[in-house]
């Protein structure tokens, strides 16, 4: 048995390693920090290996237990899943480094196992080809996320976590009922097989409705977003980062998968509705963000708005539109994580995140402010940044499809974003003289935020490469990229 590098199932490794790491951290709480960090780097390596495999050998399908669908569960990796995994790896690494300094011993003991379980769940979710297995990963993800939110303690965090838990359970139950209907209609759970056997029927329609509703609830699409801001704003900074950057994207990813492969026969009409809700989210989220008085709430509402963009592609449906959506997803993951980390630094330094009192703090944390500003550039969709590329692709798609009204939404959303980002950045420039005093914020926390923000900017300069990766396995249907 020769396990050459090429033969190692890196995808499976990326699922198992964090699982093992979580167990290790749980068994030896005293070494949670080093163990967690090592695991984080290991997972990044695994994802890199998988990416290399997919680029070199094309899509990867791996039959766990050697049974293969429909009896067993398959793990499947194409360009789409690899990109999600890579975004998770980059953000995850940043969060791990950040948290290493953020949490005190007693919290760290609880943080690391939960976070590694969550990471494992994310990787498993992005690789799963089986709709019931997806349900299990969703639940693992949801419970870990809730526990992490509650980690902050205090009334806000606990009620936020409670609401989040109920919503997340409701969502997964709706999804599970849909799974039941699909299974009993076609006798299989594998996405590819379902796609083959799919034919419209009342049961299928019901399943589409239930699963979409459940996943939209978890993705916090307007008007189902009510639970997101309290949960994301009250969680500890690194947790807010990973919730906004990754967790909400997971349920969206499932929706995207089903939409692209299983539902198209049945769900075309739903597209326009999703587009409208997305547009509403963009505007409503932007306006609410502008109204906020606390930094973390502002960032949370900005997430609501940015999630809205992800749904503008559904009515468009062209490859360019999906590419734009995915690109927005990636750059938002990086930028938003950076923003929440920056907010965390501000909180740590000044003990509050009231926007009107930011000036003194901002003066003394130049790196943090820079991180926030760079992330803001991407969120606004100004060049050069991943956000700009995404916006360009979406605008182009809207233009080509002749549905120009989505362009208006994109532009308005950008203007709103600019308004609320600069509302914060303005406070960096005050007459308060810079004083070099002992900094209460560990350098690693500032640099972690800055690194992710820079990555979001960099994403705007290397676009051809991710776009090429997206094409592997043609997740967006037959035609090549426009």
């Amino acid at each position, binding site marked *: 048995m020769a396990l050459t590098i090429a033969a190692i199932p890196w995808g499976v490794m990326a699922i198992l390693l964090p699982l093992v790491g979580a167990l290790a951290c749980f068994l030896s709480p005293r070494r949670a920090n080093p163990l967690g960090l090592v695991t984080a780097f290991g997972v990044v390596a695994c994802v890199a290996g998988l990416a290399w495999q997919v680029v070199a050998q094309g899509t990867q399908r791996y039959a766990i237990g050697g049974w293969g669908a429909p009896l067993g569960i398959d793990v499947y990796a194409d360009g789409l899943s690899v990109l999600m995994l890579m975004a998770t790896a980059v953000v995850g690494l940043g969060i791990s480094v950040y948290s290493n300094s953020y949490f005190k011993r007693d919290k760290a003991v609880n943080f690391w196992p939960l976070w590694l379980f969550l990471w494992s769940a994310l990787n498993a979710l992005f690789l799963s080809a089986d709709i*019931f297995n997806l*349900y*299990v990963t969703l*639940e693992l993800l*949801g*419970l870990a996320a*809730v*526990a992490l939110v*509650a980690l902050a303690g*205090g*009334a*806000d965090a*606990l*009620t*936020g*976590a*409670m*609401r989040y*838990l*109920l919503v997340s*359970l*409701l969502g997964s*139950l709706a999804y*599970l*009922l849909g*799974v*039941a*209907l699909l*299974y*009993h209609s076609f006798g299989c759970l594998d996405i590819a097989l379902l796609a083959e056997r799919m034919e419209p029927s009342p049961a299928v329609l019901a399943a589409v409705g239930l699963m979409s509703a459940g996943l939209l609830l978890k993705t916090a699409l307007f008007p189902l977003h*009510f639970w997101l*801001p*309290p949960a994301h*704003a*009250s969680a500890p900074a690194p947790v807010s980062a990973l919730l906004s950057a990754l967790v909400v994207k997971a349920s969206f990813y499932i929706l995207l998968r089903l939409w692209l492969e299983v539902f198209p026969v049945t769900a075309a009409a739903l597209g326009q509705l999703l587009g409208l809700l997305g547009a509403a989210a963009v505007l409503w989220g932007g306006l609410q963000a502008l109204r*906020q*008085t*606390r930094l973390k*709430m502002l960032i949370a509402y900005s997430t609501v708005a940015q999630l809205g963009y992800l749904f503008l592609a559904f009515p468009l449906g062209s490859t360019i539109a999906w590419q734009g959506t995915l690109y927005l997803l990636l750059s938002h993951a990086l930028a938003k994580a950076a923003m929440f980390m920056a907010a965390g630094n501000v909180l740590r330094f000044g003990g509050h995140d009231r926007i009107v009192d930011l000036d003194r703090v901002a003066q003394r944390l130049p790196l943090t402010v820079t991180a926030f500003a760079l992330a803001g550039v991407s969120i606004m969709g100004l060049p050069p940044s991943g956000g700009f590329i995404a916006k360009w692709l979406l605008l182009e798609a809207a233009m080509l499809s002749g549905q120009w009204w989505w362009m208006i939404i994109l532009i308005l959303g950008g203007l709103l974003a600019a308004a609320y980002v600069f509302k914060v950045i303005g406070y960096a420039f005050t007459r308060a003289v810079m004083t070099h005093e002992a900094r209460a914020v560990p350098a690693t926390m500032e640099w972690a935020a800055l690194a992710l923000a820079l990555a979001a900017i960099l994403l705007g300069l290397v676009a051809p490469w991710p776009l090429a990766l997206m094409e592997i396995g043609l997740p967006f249907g037959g035609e090549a990229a426009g």
Partner: protein
Amino acid sequence: MSPPSLYALVGIGLFTLGLYALIVHTHLLRKILAINVMGSGVFLVLVALAARAREAAPDPVPHAMVITGIVVAVSATALALALMVRVRAETGRAELPEKRPE
């Protein structure tokens, strides 16, 4: 109508009933119970439909799914109850505040 699909209909009934309770009731314990009722409904649908075909033995896969689902439900309920107790300890009421922090 065959008994299995009758059970399935009952399952659907439980699901919607639970949903109603989840929305209407404000006390967290009731909400948690409501979620569990919904879950039972889904499980009932799963196993009931597994026995649709009269002649053959019932399909084992849905049963396995239900067992998994039950374990998940137990875990989630446990976490939810613990959270509820803490919420009550913090806020004095086992309810979610109508007004949210901003």
